[in-house]
């Protein structure tokens, strides 16, 4: 019996030490944090603060309760001469450990309510010119987006249809969501945004992206920079996200690591940007302006934030991915002008427009009416 007590104590200490140490492996930030860096100044920080606020309370209860269990296991283990105390309970103690947690729990709830209201019940006005309105209408297993086009009216011939989105830095974005087939869920981890795209109704979510995702060509990795941090850099574009063909200087390649076998084993992909062959100079964004620069001087390429589907939607659900590109406002304006011009010229295929008109306007749950 004594041996098993030691076994329990040492095992329990080892496991709890391991659990407690896990957050120490975390990457960056003042608090141990594995979350993707937050880039949504609309409410992302508030979500993170609430997360870590709960973290502190939970950690206190975790160490209190688990510590007490460990203490009991060691101090009150059965041994020669030890007699348990015959106690049935204490009303005073029961009241104390009911009332205190109750107050804490209600406090946590109240602390969340305001942020929840600001995220889900208070939206930027669609009529505000500073709001970018994007309709999102996914189908298995693709993300489809629509901008209003030059006439600023959805449902007209010049609507812009895309499979990834561009948004201007620091401006509010309003995403309206529905679905033409099954339930999908629009998840942008870096923006702390998630909302189901539910067929038969329209959901709304909003956010403000306040940091750029750029690719560091030398370091071969994505970095997240503020407007000030990026101002002195020379940033180019790839064919995925350049406003016009003139801006394209790079190709994003998603190549497998090493041999196929190794890639299959690890499942890893490596992303890199290669210069478009025969290009010697490219347009870059530098000091708040479009400029020409030798391709060798380009330090960064505008990269993207990932969009995932967070609701099981069928066979290729795992691969239902899209992107949010955050542009400087002037770059966004140039991109938007280019895609509007293209849309006015070619229009959208009939299958696309037909799908977009399925029940979209009727899909209006009661609560949307309330906040309108």
């Amino acid at each position: 019996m004594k041996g098993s007590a030691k076994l329990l104590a040492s095992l329990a200490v080892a496991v709890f030490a391991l659990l407690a140490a896990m957050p120490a492996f975390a990457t960056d930030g003042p608090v141990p944090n594995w979350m993707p860096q937050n880039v949504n100044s609309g409410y992302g920080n508030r979500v993170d603060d609430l997360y870590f606020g709960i973290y502190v309370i939970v950690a206190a209860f975790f160490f209190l309760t688990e510590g007490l269990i460990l203490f009991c296991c060691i101090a009150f283990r059965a041994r020669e001469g030890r007699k348990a105390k015959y106690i049935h309970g204490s009303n005073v103690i029961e009241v104390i450990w009911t009332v205190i947690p109750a107050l804490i729990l209600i406090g946590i709830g109240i602390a969340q309510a305001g942020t929840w209201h600001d995220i889900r019940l208070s939206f930027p006005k669609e009529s505000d010119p500073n709001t970018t309105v994007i309709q999102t209408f996914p189908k298995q297993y693709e993300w489809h987006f629509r901008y209003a086009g030059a006439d600023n009216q959805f449902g007209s011939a010049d609507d812009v249809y895309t499979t990834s989105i561009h948004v201007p830095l620091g401006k509010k974005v309003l995403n309206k969501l529905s679905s033409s087939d099954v339930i999908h869920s629009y998840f942008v981890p870096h923006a702390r945004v998630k909302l189901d795209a539910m067929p038969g109704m329209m959901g709304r979510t909003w956010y403000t992206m306040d940091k750029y995702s750029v690719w560091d060509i030398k370091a071969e990795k994505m970095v997240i920079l503020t407007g000030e941090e990026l101002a002195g850099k020379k940033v180019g574009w790839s064919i995925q996200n350049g406003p016009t063909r003139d801006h394209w200087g790079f190709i994003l390649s998603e190549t497998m690591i090493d041999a196929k076998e190794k890639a299959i084993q690890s499942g890893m992909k490596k992303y890199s940007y290669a210069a478009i062959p025969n290009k010697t100079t490219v347009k870059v964004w530098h000091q708040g302006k479009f400029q020409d620069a030798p391709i060798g001087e380009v330090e960064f390429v505008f990269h993207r934030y990932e969009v995932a589907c967070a609701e099981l939607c069928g066979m290729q659900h795992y691969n239902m991915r899209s992107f949010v590109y955050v542009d400087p406002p002037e770059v966004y304006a140039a991109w938007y002008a280019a895609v509007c011009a293209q849309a006015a010229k070619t229009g959208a295929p009939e299958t696309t427009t037909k799908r977009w008109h399925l029940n979209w306007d009727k899909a209006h749950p009661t609560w949307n009416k309330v906040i309108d």
Partner: protein
Amino acid sequence: MSEHAQDHAHPAPHEHIPVEPKGFIRKYIFSIDHKWIGKQYLVTSLFFLIVGGGLAMLMRWQLAYPGSTVPVIGGLLKNSWICGPEGAVSPEGFNQLVTMHGSIMIFLVIIPILVGAFGNFLIPLHVGARDVAFPILNAVSYWLYFPAGLIFLASFFVGDGGAGSGWTAYPPLSDLNNSAPGMHYGQVFWLFGVFLVGFSSILGGMNFMTTIIKLRAPGMTWTRMPLVTWAQFVTALFQLLATPVLASAMMLLMMDKLFGCSFFIPRDLAIADAPTGRSGNGHPLLWQHIFWFYSHPAVYILILPGMGLASDLLACFSRKPIFGYKVMVVSMTGIMGLGFIVWGHHMFQSGMDPRLGTAFMMSTMLIALPSGVKCFNWIATLWQGSIRFTVPMLHALSFLSMFIIGGLSGLWMAATPVDIFIHDTYYVVAHFHYVVFGGTLFAVFGGLVFWFPKMYGRMMNNALGYIHWTLTFITFNLVFFPMHILGEAGAMRRVSTHTIYEFLQPIQWMNVMISHAAFILGFSQLIFVFNLFWSMYRGKKAEGNPWQSATLEWTGPSPLPYHNFDKVPVVHRGPYEYSTGVGDKDWISQDEPASAGGGHGGH
């Protein structure tokens, strides 16, 4: 005191002693003996535990090494619904694995083992009855559950594969037969299986509730019932009130699938741009409301009996009465009351009216309270005890410490703004595995080792028990704790290949580590299964009360006779009269005469 207690207890049940049938079929197949039916549930649910665990192993292989051939059995699974031509798990196969793992574990393992096995075996013994109130109905419950399990498994082999819409079966994915592979016959089989198992559950709940209300032995007042039985009583209430709602949902979805109705299909829906042809005046959100109205209470069906088992073990091996018995009972009923008004927290991101989100957040915060109070009471039970680290006790302590982690992690998900980020991530997976595996399964393991002597007349092997617990405790934490971090990093659940996402690639090492720990965890369970079956025939013969426990089942020999008690016992005190300081031994059985002392346990 005892005479007084007897006055307001139920009158003695009739003294008719049932006779054990002789024929093989009546004795072993269609038995109506609650103990044998309990064992039938036990063996069947352990079989499904191995199946469900095996599916989890396949999932873990894919998550650690996406697209690579499954070792050992990859060749056998080539070109199946699970695996592609190279023997690697296919995307649609992964969805089926996710769905069937969850469904099997919830509907065919945890609920049946807790309610079917422990409920059946223990309730009549704990209340001092010779059997349940409706023995034939009891057999019917099992014989609905068993074919339901077979129908579940058969769904893998019909049409183009098993159900693949998750255990939550959200329409329109689960509703439209052409929305994905496995959504036609596989999904119909799944629905029918859940429907049957739901009926089994309703019949069981009704039976147990009647047994507890009507068949308590003289002197067995409500406050003298062991907490195991109280937990089963509250669970039976849950089953009676919530499961019919699930059965209705299954029926509605079945009507959608088989007869072209549109309960959950809105207008103008199209798959691959082709209209579905349904009239479409229903709504998918309706399913979520109905489903979670059952399935959140189901979460408590999954944990409450485990709480009961752990309560008995913690008291017995601390050699102390349970701290705050009545508060424990009130907490359980509180969980039940609140359990019916928190379902919306599964739907915070569904597009449901956000004002409802605020209301459900507050009710969810409050339901943490009774669970928290129970944890404090369990710790207080350990306090100043004389703790014996037997194998059942190690499992009970693991239950307590792991359930605390599972309960605490629920707070993040209850908080609506925080839930936006962690909803549908591995955070949720970590949370519910800490509750259902860390909580319930540890309690089940502890309970099985504890009551094994009463079931089979032998003790389970101690050395194998310690090895199993040690490996399980360590690897369980190595598997599920890092999943909190995966969730914090944003890793989505039900996704077969995380490495497709740039933001998840840096933490792929964690998936690999988790999978290796999971393989050891899976292997460790085989030790338990081996120990169980080996000990049935080769274990050390058990005495009547090997754990020196105070409840009624320990007053007879091990195993108990067919009729349980030669004479219906008269109960004089509560179930946890340990270390009273009266007499030579440190426990007093519930049926010992009042002169034996131990006055506090129940009135």
